[in-house]
């Protein structure tokens, strides 16, 4: 059945008619490898969507959300090419709920000389700072912990990320599940004593999926 369908779709007539197949744009962008092959398999482009907004929803902070991002962030802060140091982007942490611990960041391979921590006093400053950081074009990734993120705000972040060619990652509570969002990728992260479960809720250019046990170790 699948073979027959593929054959049919390869017919040049379909191409000319401009048939949209949902996944056709997946190959257009290069994903940022997450460092976890089990997750990469489900993400279009083989990794995190760069230059877009990613939302991670979780019950409480500290459940493994940073571990999930660390390999990709380390890659952004230290490009493989030694001579390409200039291209390394900044990692902005906007209103983190706790202090990101530098010794642990170093263990994960993050270049601390590229880390910015922004403390906000008012909720609406978080979004403003995030938008500024994203659209400045200096930040390779912007991590933010907003209290509230309306659909309109998420769209603004998405546009700012595209403009500044930056990766936005918003961490949100589970209560945001019912809200719509303009994010390119939404993942619900839940942990239990058996391990971590990633529920890909929205996946632009890909399909929703549930990924289990991508991360086994608790540190590094």
């Amino acid at each position, binding site marked *: 059945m699948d073979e027959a369908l593929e054959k049919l779709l390869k017919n040049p007539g379909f191409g000319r008619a401009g048939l949209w197949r949902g996944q056709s744009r997946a190959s257009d962008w290069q994903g940022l490898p997450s460092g976890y092959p089990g997750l990469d398999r489900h993400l279009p482009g083989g990794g995190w969507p760069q230059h877009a907004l990613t939302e991670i929803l979780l019950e409480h902070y500290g459940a493994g959300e940073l571990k999930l991002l660390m390999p990709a962030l380390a890659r952004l802060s230290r490009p493989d090419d030694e001579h390409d140091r200039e291209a390394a982007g900044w990692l902005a942490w906007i209103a983190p709920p706790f*202090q990101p611990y530098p010794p642990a960041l170093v263990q994960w391979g993050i270049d601390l000389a590229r880390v910015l921590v922004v403390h906000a006093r008012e909720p609406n400053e978080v979004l403003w700072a995030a938008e500024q950081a994203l659209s400045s074009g200096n930040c390779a990734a912007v991590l933010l912990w907003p209290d509230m993120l309306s659909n309109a705000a998420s769209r603004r972040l998405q546009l700012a990320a595209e403009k500044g060619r930056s990766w936005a990652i918003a961490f949100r509570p589970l209560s945001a599940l019912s809200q719509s969002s303009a994010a390119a990728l939404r993942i619900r992260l839940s942990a239990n*004593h058996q391990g971590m479960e990633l529920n890909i809720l929205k996946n632009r250019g890909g399909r929703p999926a549930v990924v289990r046990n991508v991360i086994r170790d608790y540190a590094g």
Partner: protein
Amino acid sequence: MSSSEKTSAVLQGASPTPPALKHRSAARQPVQQSLALSSPDQLPADVREPLPAEITVPPSRTLVRASIKEHLWLCIYLPALPLEALTDRKPGTARAVVEDVQGIRRILLANDKAFAAGIRADLSVNAALSLLPDLNLEVRNPQQEERALKSLASWAEQFTSFVSIEAPSVLLLEVAGSLRLFAGMQTLWQRIVSGFGQQGFTANLALAPTPLASIWLAKSGREVCIDDHAHLNGHLSALPLHCLGWPVSVTESLCSMGITSVGDCLRLPREGFARRFGAESLLQLDRALGRLPDPRVSYRSVARFCALHDLEEEQSDRELLLHACRELLLKLERFLLVRQMQVQRVQFRFFHLRVEATDLVLGSVQAGRSVAQWFELLSIKLERTTLPEPVIAIRLRGGPGQLLSIATDNLLFNTSVKPRDASIARLVERLNARMGDACVRGVTTVAEHRPQYAWRSDGLSGDAPRCAAMPGFWNERQVPALLQEIRQTNNLLLRRPLWMLANARPLASEQGHPFYQGRLTVVDGPERLESGWWDDDGIARDYFVALTAKGVYLWIYQDRSKNAAWYLHGFFG
């Protein structure tokens, strides 16, 4: 008079300011025609003719080649300074400055309109008012004149490093070294005259090899350019005595003897002249002719910028305030540009009528001077500030200046290299401007065993080393990959949590077992840390990695010094 080669050294121009700006002063009298010249052909005919309105400067090749060793003094004489230093409140009206002379108020200077109505210097106020009842009279303000002169001196510093203020109304510029840079005397002359004109000042210029000669020539109204000592004598000889600024008693007694010009004085015997008219007069003549040195004091303008903008009425409209601030910033930029400096912080002060002034301090990571940079920060900050009252005046102060340093950019052969680092400073500035200073921090590790001291947070402002990678924790760059692998496989890495709590949180415990959202399962540990006995914050702790029922990994410790209490110190995140 066949003096074509000498006219080349003579500038026969008047200031290019429009006639309306020209003022008549008591000091400026028509050039006397009946001078007894020692050698008449030394004074070119053109000088005695009425001054043409348009500036014509002779070919200035010789001046471009002027040797640096020889000084050339450009004198800028401001004949109408008492009038021009006062702000003209109603343009187009007849104005005059009055001064108290022995208790009688007399006209010192009148503008063109008043002059046309017959107002002359030395007229008493009553007489002037009877001639022109709607004449605006203003009292002379020496402080204002001094301020104006200083600001003009600061402005003139762009042409030379040596500007001297000769009170009350003369600026001296030593320009021998500047001629090449400004492409000759002609352009320099024009730039100065037009610059003064734009600032609303009439200037009489004269150039001579000695400072005093240039002052005398400028005061006499002869706009000449003398670059050679040989021509000095001839030009000075023709000068009438009233231009020299000598005491009235000396001038009068000389005049009564029929001596009316400098040339006449020079023909008198030196000894007798000194005895009868004072050694000071002879000294001045010698200095003017370059026989004796004539040192001058160089004016040094203030190193920090400060300017006040008075608003005509109380103002609360942000757009208008921003516009006024922009004017101030433009001034700041010019100020810094001339000095090749930049500043790292500026302070705006908004004055109110009834309550205390509001201060806005703008700081920047990278020192700068461009209007755009500061204006952007200002508009962000002003948007967040509530002014308690309308504003009546704005003052801008620049911080201490730093010498301009321009980082050399890499030559980007590889276009794929994105110069990302270059403008992170601007992002930090913007964030700081709106969210308060020190809201943006960098982090770095510190070589320290106690977990709470193993890191540090640095502000990203100033020249502080930006996140200098401290040796301490294992830096992957320094550890060979093989060693890293051995450590990892043998579990020798010290596990540290990604999230740290600012203050450790006490945990409930039951029979010595810690609880956090249920009973905790210890996964790893203990890691014993005993350190810091040498200061007041010593620790004695056993650290464990624990797993909650919900699958969250915690970093907890048991304090061995305080009845074995349990604490939560971080999440592995």
